[in-house]
């Protein structure tokens, strides 16, 4: 392994990617008994079993089968789904990805929009009304599973008051355009944002309180800077690193974590795809979806690591 941190990081990244794809490939071997029988059901013609066995790479030694499967995957061939019409897994994944990414991005933005001002206000007035309410809300929100929050949102806003369209999805690129798209995305976005808001709020609040107790803040205040300029101009930037890390971690995880919300609102995203494929035993589709999500997560983590070093000079110097 190379000495240079970037090289070492790359080698590690590659190892994680290889291992996670191997784990995905080995998913079929978790099936009790003959996986092809488990997938197709009993009493099919022998050719169908053989064909599937070949497709899943089970008719060769494990490593050879894996190498083949991985080679195909790198070339953008994730096999064919077992579902009706036998669509290409890649096509299904590419159809679901934009929906999942849009949901993740909007939820992230919403959570930040709510958490940052609240954290600022709470840190400026600790133990005040807003602080106590926001802290309580973040507790409640951590303890509420996302699907339950989503369910209550649907019950209230869709079924009882009929303020929002019932589930489903309208793509931005469709004729109805961006307004309809946003109307359909609103509730799922709120449901996902509720789950990530507490982390953002608590991390930024406690970092801000930490920074505000330091000498340079007291000095700034003594010079007569207004409280808001101290807060926004002096305290916010040095307090932002943890929340930036957290945003990065969430970016990678959200696509996977939003599965339940996606399924509940029947959005045609990756999560719904994987959940349905898992229910019907469509292993190639599960494998394709899992692989894409794992790769997304690993890559976004690597990007965040790099960005972090670039943002914070201390990290750069410590590593060099």
């Amino acid at each position, binding site marked *: 392994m190379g000495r240079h941190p970037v090289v070492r990081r790359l080698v590690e990244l590659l190892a994680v990617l290889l*291992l996670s794809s191997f784990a995905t490939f080995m998913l079929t071997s978790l099936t009790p008994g003959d996986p092809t029988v488990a997938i197709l059901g009993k009493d099919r013609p022998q050719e169908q079993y053989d064909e599937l066995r070949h497709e899943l790479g089970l008719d060769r030694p494990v490593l050879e089968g894996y190498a083949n499967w991985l080679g195909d995957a790198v070339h953008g061939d994730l096999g064919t789904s077992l579902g009706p019409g036998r669509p290409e897994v890649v096509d299904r994944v590419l159809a679901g990805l934009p929906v999942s990414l849009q949901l993740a991005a909007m939820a992230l933005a919403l959570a930040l929009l709510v958490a940052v001002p609240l954290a600022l206000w709470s840190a400026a007035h600790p133990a005040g009304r807003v602080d106590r309410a926001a802290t309580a809300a973040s507790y409640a929100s951590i303890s509420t599973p996302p699907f339950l929050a989503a369910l209550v949102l649907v019950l209230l806003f869709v079924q009882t008051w009929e303020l929002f369209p019932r589930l489903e999805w309208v793509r931005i690129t469709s004729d109805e355009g961006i307004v309809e798209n946003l109307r359909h995305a609103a509730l799922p976005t709120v449901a996902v944002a509720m789950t990530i808001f507490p982390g953002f709020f608590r991390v930024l609040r406690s970092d801000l309180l930490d920074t505000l107790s330091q000498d340079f803040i007291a000095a700034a205040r003594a010079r007569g800077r207004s409280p808001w300029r101290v807060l926004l101009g002096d305290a916010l930037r040095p307090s932002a690193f943890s929340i930036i890390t957290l945003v990065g971690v969430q970016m990678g995880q959200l696509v996977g974590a939003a599965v339940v919300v996606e399924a509940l609102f029947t959005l045609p995203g990756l999560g719904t795809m994987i959940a349905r494929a898992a229910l019907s035993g469509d292993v190639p589709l599960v494998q394709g979806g899992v692989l894409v999500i794992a790769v997304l997560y690993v890559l976004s983590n690597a990007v965040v690591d790099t960005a972090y070093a670039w943002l914070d000079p201390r990290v750069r110097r410590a590593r060099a």
Partner: protein
Amino acid sequence: MTVATPLAEVPSWVRGAVPAAAGLVAVVAGTAGLSSGGAMWLRVVLTLAGAGVLYRAYRALAAWAKGPEWPAAYWAAVTWLGLIGVGALVAPLLPLGEASNASRTLDVVPLLRPDLGRTFPLGTNAYGLDLLARVLEGARVSLVVSLGGVAIGIVVGGTIGLVTGYLRGPVDSAVRVVADTVLAFPPLILLLAVASVAPRTSLTFVLAFGFLLVPINIRLARGNTLAVVQREFVLSAESLGASPRRIVFRELLPNVVLPSVSYGLVLVPLMIVTEAALSFLGLGIPPPRPSWGNMIAEGRAGASVDNPHLVLVPGCVLILTVLALNRVAERLRHGGLGER
């Protein structure tokens, strides 16, 4: 010559007793007094608000009786967890309705609303099954899977982290890469993948949850080991000629086990939520066996606008349990000084 504010003259126990009475009235009225029909959501709001007021009253009364330092929220959480735990244990012995066999409830009125004074205090579902019995039966699933998974995660992950953290070297690097790999899968996705191929029994999920929690426990135990190894007592044991095994189990283990267990307490509610999400997607323990997740899913499927209790009963139990676990975990982590 100051005019005292009226509030200051009220004895503090009154400030607790009045809302207590009000809350009780609201809860009873919400679950029983108002007839069904259009007032459904009013009943729900009334019940929930009443419960909230009751809790505030409890806080006020506790502060009056035991002093403001007494951790009222913590004891409320412990009581709730005790109720759920004991209830889950002795559920088969209790005189409850039928929990999962719909063929035995043909004579029971289906879709009864919760009414604390009746035979079915939490109501019945579409098949006439008793929601209270189902909630307790579901607690068994949730508790077995989450506690079992966390236990496996702590024992296996903790041991690996402890040993590799002490030995270091190439094995340590390899273990770290493997652990990072498992962490690269969003937990729910991994569980979905497992559920798509493996038989969906409690044992499968205990093992899957355990597997899922091993890497994070490896990280934690390894980090703590690295910190403890540098302390003087380890050095002195080494220079006295203690064997590596003795150092790992007698010197390091007692110092590493505590943070691992206290982190495990945080993991339990997370696992409960994850199990519920999995069951909600229809990929957890299959019905008719109840779990909190599949109860919520069932309530969502059957006309939930008219019968929100099908969702709200298991939902509230789930939320309260998770809240209580978080509260207890936080207090224990802060060495008993956590009360804000």
